[in-house]
């Protein structure tokens, strides 16, 4: 084993750990002899899940109350490290809270961060990371040059989760030092904007729409098609920014990473920041009226055509079948 201990910072998905936690624990197990999960909220209820994927311990920083995860988790980890309990590496998900945690921890312990990591391997006893650059056209490998703990911010779906058959992880609570002003932000309300049907990042079929749809009303074609295929509807950032659909629909660098069996891109040009979030889909269909659109370079089936002509016929044809 290259390393002794890796901490995996696990986001929560309701009462459970987020899927990214199991992806990272699985990878960490390959690289270090001990993998420990750091999370917030109740630890007891996730000890069995964490253990099943190979984590030896679950450390919780306690209930966040109205606080944000970033300052709380970072301060608790920094306190452990200052007290001599330092891991060799910290894995954090490239999520909303994950970036906050990594940024704050980095400044607190004065250690650098590698972000947008899509692969990690051990070389000569140290970790080397993979980053997809230029929309995934090239892979950049990097490493830290100073003593750890290095902080790695890892994109979702970079590793396949695999159970190890381990028993429940040991559970304890880490103290959170006084946060001062850094902990002063508080959540006063939570709004959920998800639609019915499968979740965007879990669906077997994803149909995404972009600016080429022309207007917000035409997004209904994307939703209808997604529904007929029992898939989820997604979007490019252009139409999220335009307010046609909520942020939770966004696929790409700043949005969700999807890896469905079939990804259908409609009126999406294929900007590098979009491709990085969907390029690993097993099969890609693109509909775009511009033959030169970059999306065609990664499409298995490319249709040069007008979305407003192709989609209604496709929807009709699928309706005929059911």
């Amino acid at each position, binding site marked *: 084993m290259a390393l002794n201990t890796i901490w995996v910072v696990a986001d929560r*998905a309701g009462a459970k750990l987020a899927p990214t936690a199991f992806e990272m624990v699985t990878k960490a197990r390959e690289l270090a002899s001990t993998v420990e999960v750091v999370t917030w909220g109740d630890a007891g209820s996730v000890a069995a899940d964490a253990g099943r994927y190979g984590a030896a311990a679950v450390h919780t920083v306690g209930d966040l109350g109205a606080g*944000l995860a*970033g*300052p709380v988790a970072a301060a608790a980890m920094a306190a452990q490290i200052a007290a001599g309990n330092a891991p060799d590496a910290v894995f954090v998900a*490239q999520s*909303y809270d994950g*970036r*906050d945690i990594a*940024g*704050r921890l980095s*400044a607190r312990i*004065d*250690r*650098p*961060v*590698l*972000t947008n990591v899509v692969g990690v391997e051990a070389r000569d006893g140290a970790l080397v990371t993979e980053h997809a650059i230029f929309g*995934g*056209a*090239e892979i*950049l*490998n*990097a*490493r*830290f*040059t*100073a003593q750890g703990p290095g902080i790695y911010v890892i994109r979702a779906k970079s590793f396949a989760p695999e159970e190890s058959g381990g028993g429940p992880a040991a559970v304890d609570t880490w103290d959170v030092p006084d946060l001062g*002003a*850094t*902990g*002063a*932000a*508080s*959540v006063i*309300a*939570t*709004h959920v*904007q998800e639609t019915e049907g499968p979740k965007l990042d879990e669906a077997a079929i994803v149909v995404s729409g972009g600016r080429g749809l022309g207007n917000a009303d035409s997004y209904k074609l994307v939703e209808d098609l997604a529904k007929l*295929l029992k898939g989820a509807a997604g979007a490019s*950032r252009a139409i999220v*920014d335009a307010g046609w659909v*909520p*942020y*939770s629909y966004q696929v790409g*660098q*700043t949005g969700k990473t999807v890896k469905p069996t079939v990804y259908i891109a409609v009126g999406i040009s294929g900007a590098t920041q979009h491709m990085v979030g969907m390029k690993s889909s097993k*099969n*890609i269909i693109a*509909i775009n009226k511009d033959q030169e659109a970059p999306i065609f*370079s990664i*499409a*298995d*089936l*490319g*249709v*040069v055509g007008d979305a407003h*002509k*192709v989609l209604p016929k496709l929807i009709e*044809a699928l309706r005929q*079948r059911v």
Partner: protein
Amino acid sequence: MRFMNVVVCVKQIPDPAAPARLDPSTWTLEREGKLILDESDSYGVEMGLQLADQAGGGEVTLVSMAPRNETSGLRTALAMGAARAILVSDPVLGGSDALGTAKVLAAAIRRAEPDLVVAATESTDGYTGTLPVQLAELLGFPSVTFVKKVTVGDGKVHVERQTEAGFDEVETPLPAVITVTAGVVEPRYPSFKGIMAAKGKPVDQLTVADLGLPEGSVGAAGARQEVVSVEPAESRKAGEIIVDEGDAHTRIVAYLEQLKVI
């Protein structure tokens, strides 16, 4: 609140429309030509201007770290209406990582005594997305990232923050750091008057020594990470491209059948 002092972090980057290249000796992005205002930061500038207005008075101070005393991007933001700029430029800063850059920006920002610091969620060329939070920690400020709507009042900011499933309403006392996403506001185009006025606005140019930062804590020496190699990724097999003649939908249906998903 009467006077609101907003600091907006603006990155000046190579034109993203030009083909990007990595310097083959250092594996860093080549930054030879003229740099421009990162479009991601134009939202922060607009937001800063609007918030100063909303507060009933205030000013936007720009803070940027860039090579070769670059001011082109700053001039664009000054032309939009920012009052002044602080530019940190120093040859020793080449090869800085996000934490090193955050240390430099934090030192510069402390001089401006901000009520609010605005940055973009992530830059177009670096997209680490961690720098603003590192900055907040170094300044000892609370922070809210991925902000899509902001109102200020009573020494507090009230924001909507993007989440996995929707958004949260978050409140934080000032001073604070927020990061805004694209689309949060519509950046104004600099007017002719604005462009002329920008020429006379103060740009305070500082070096690392001016900021009193310890040597070796910033720049390449402080980065403590290196690129090992860059390789072409496995490319996807080129697929079939068809031109719609009114029957493309049948090809899509056949393809979906072949994949056994319908």
